[in-house]
């Protein structure tokens, strides 16, 4: 064989690339994956998380990808069944006092941290008082009324409140409020603690390795507090930036589980027809993901409620669910997600798709069609995170044209979008995805409460909507401990929100999880990919 000069160059290049790959860790990741294949495939669960999390501890960052990895290592006090009723986790018993001013927890005995130290009530006290109340993005609001956590003995913790705070019982899962080891966090700066990137928890999996940009490996925790679990020996989380490449990895059996839309929605129909793969929308009830359309209530254009109603009547939410979200969502009727069955009510003012009515409302409000059929012009800022959001904006522009409103779309990056909506309030209308969370006080109040009109805080009350009646309802809902009365308060709140219409809820978003059918037990967990994966088995 003759080797030309050019071939030699190529060879040289190849050697260089090989060395580069080895240095960068790409090759070693292939090694790990290769080894995992060689080992008993039944014992290795291969997961993908989109995108790669910046940190592995959900106490400091509540982004959905962080919650997916944190929960495998760090436990919460409680878990929840599919009706959102609490289940034992680190706490085995709990008792809410009659006046709602304290909750007593009996803790699970003989639980050990991954480094062998015993888990006690001191860890709970430290986590709630020092971590969750001070550093957790939502915890500052959730635990605002916590005055102290009493620890009469190592296996008892009593949370004391200054005001009744019934919603706290909904916020104690591993994904929302992880319990951290006091002995590793005390005395240094918690958000900068090195264990945030290599967590020591009490959960079913132990941290092994994080090769940034490539993979994370976790191993079975043999001392996990449920004997014999988990059944999975090792868990590998791979980061594949491209949705097309992820689809291929699922098809070839290299990935077992991926949550929060790992594959383009448009591609799912094809994936569903493959014999070894399945698609589910279960496991996202806790998020209560929705898509909101918001008016800037400071804008004189929207002072008249009939203008807001007209726009609501002109948006065909079923069309959006079917074509923009490819059916992975349903038309929303109110500000609370239908998945939050405890609080959701369908009995609110409705705005069915009706162009004629929309036009009549605009005529009545004093905006007749002028030259060229245009009534007035508005701008619209869609959120930037997903293709679906942009498609919705394009749909909205066309839908408004049909009733004589000219829409100028504003494309921007995420930072500009947040600045325009929540810092400078310079927009006219906006749309964005939002999580209701398991309780409306945590996830919905922030969008309607006039005391939450806070400049520079994303996903606060950006519309500037301010109603004393609404404030009174929200504040009553915050402190009401009677379940039925609380439900009634939130029913009224939903009616009022849909009457005043500062926000038009568009879609209940169904996130999708793609998984290989050899994975068992994934959909039994309320939290799906946000769950602990302790009960997952591989066939």
């Amino acid at each position, binding site marked *: 064989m003759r080797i030309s000069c050019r071939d030699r160059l190529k060879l040289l290049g190849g050697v260089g690339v090989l060395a580069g790959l080895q240095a960068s860790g790409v090759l070693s990741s292939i090694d790990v994956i290769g080894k995992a294949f060689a080992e008993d495939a039944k014992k290795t669960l291969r997961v993908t998380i989109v995108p790669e999390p910046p940190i592995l501890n959900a106490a400091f960052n509540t982004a959905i990808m962080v919650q997916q990895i944190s929960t495998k290592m760090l436990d919460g006090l409680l878990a929840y069944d599919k009706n959102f009723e609490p289940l034992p986790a680190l706490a085995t018993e709990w008792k809410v006092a009659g006046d709602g001013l304290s909750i007593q927890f009996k803790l699970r005995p003989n639980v050990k941290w991954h480094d062998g130290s015993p888990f006690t009530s001191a860890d709970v006290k430290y986590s709630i008082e020092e971590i969750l109340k001070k550093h957790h993005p939502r915890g500052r609001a959730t635990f605002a009324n916590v005055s102290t956590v009493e620890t009469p003995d190592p296996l008892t913790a009593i949370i004391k409140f200054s005001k009744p705070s019934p919603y706290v019982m909904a916020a104690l899962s591993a994904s929302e409020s992880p319990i951290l080891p006091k002995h590793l966090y005390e005395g240094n700066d918690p958000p900068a603690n090195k264990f945030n990137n290599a967590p020591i928890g009490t959960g079913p999996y132990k941290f092994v390795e994080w090769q940034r940009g490539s993979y994370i490996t976790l191993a079975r925790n043999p001392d996990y507090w449920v004997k014999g679990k988990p059944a999975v020996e090792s868990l590998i989380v791979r980061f594949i930036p491209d949705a*097309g490449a992820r*689809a291929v990895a699922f098809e070839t059996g290299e990935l077992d589980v991926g949550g929060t839309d790992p594959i*383009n*929605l*448009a*591609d799912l*129909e*094809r994936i569903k027809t493959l014999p070894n793969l399945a698609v589910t929308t279960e496991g996202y009830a806790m998020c209560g993901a929705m898509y909101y359309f918001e008016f800037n209530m400071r804008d004189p254009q929207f002072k008249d409620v009939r203008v807001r109603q007209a726009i609501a009547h002109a948006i065909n939410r079923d069309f959006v669910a079917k*074509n*923009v979200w*490819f059916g992975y969502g349903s038309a929303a009727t109110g500000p609370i997600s239908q998945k939050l069955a405890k609080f959701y009510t369908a009995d609110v003012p409705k705005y069915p798709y009706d162009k004629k009515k929309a036009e009549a409302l605009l005529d009545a409000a004093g905006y007749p069609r002028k030259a060229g059929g245009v009534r007035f012009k508005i701008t619209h800022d869609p959120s*930037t995170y997903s*293709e679906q959001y*942009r*498609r919705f*904006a*394009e*749909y909205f*522009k*066309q839908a408004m044209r049909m009733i004589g409103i000219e829409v*100028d*779309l*504003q*494309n*921007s*990056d995420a930072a*500009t979008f947040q600045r325009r909506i929540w810092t400078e309030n310079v927009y006219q209308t906006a749309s964005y995805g939002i999580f209701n969370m398991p309780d409306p006080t945590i996830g919905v109040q922030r969008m309607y409460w006039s005391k939450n009109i806070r400049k520079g805080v994303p996903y606060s009350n950006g519309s500037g909507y301010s109603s004393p009646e609404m404030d009174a309802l929200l504040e009553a809902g915050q402190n009401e401990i009677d379940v039925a009365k609380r439900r009634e308060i939130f029913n009224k709140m939903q009616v009022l929100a849909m009457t005043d219409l500062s926000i038009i809820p568009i879609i209940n978003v169904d996130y999708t999880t793609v998984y290989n059918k050899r994975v068992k037990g994934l959909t039994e967990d309320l939290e799906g990919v946000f769950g602990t994966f302790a009960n997952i088995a591989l066939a």
Partner: protein
Amino acid sequence: MIARSSFIQRYFQSRTGVIGLIILTLIIVMAIFGPTLYPVDPWDMVSRPLQWPSFGAEAPLGSDVLGRDVLSGLINGARVSLIIGISATAAAVAIGVTVGAVAGYFRGLTDDALMRITEVFQTIPNFLFVIVLVAVFRPSVFTISAAIAVVSWPAVARLVRGEFLSLRQRAFVESCVTIGMSTPRIIFTQILPNCIAPVIVTSSIMIATAILVEAGLSFLGLGDPNVMSWGAMIGFGRQSLRTSWYLTLIPGVAIQLTVLSISFVGEALNDSLNPRL
């Protein structure tokens, strides 16, 4: 006159040049008259979403995820692509020729200063620079054209400067100076016409590049959200690449044909304007 007819003859000797010219003319005709002959709004949701190309009456080239007509997008996108390609290039050539001519004619300190500025622009990767400019200012057809012009003028400036440096020494220029002709007159009526051939060739390639840059921006979602362009169409279709690949293929072929035909024309122009090569 002799020179001009021989230039046209030389041009038509190039087979690719002729093919390029025919395709380009068709695209230009489509951009100018298409929207009148096929008056369907490219954003209107006219048919069932994701309808395959049927070549029938309704949505002959199929429809996208929202039921928008692909043919209408193709026609209106041609207009956007050509407007951006031509206006960005015109602006870039205007800046580049001015800077290059001044630097090449006056030389010395002026030349040094202008060339250092040019180098600053040349060291920043073009596409990234365009993204930054478009992100800072709101994306619109105007800002995108301006951003592309801002990144593409240095090539013209360097080219014109080189030509000026050599032509400046020639006897005919010296004689113009001797008879007291004003500097602007020498630059614009004497030297510039003699170096316009390479500028024409470069700018034809620049139009093609500008069209590609615009397509890239729109594909990334940084285009003007209020106009339909080919890049944006590919962006819309990308999600359904595995199932409805025609959404990506059709505008992709349109971009390719346009860029290819402009390149062919540019090459043929180069051959016919510089017969020595």
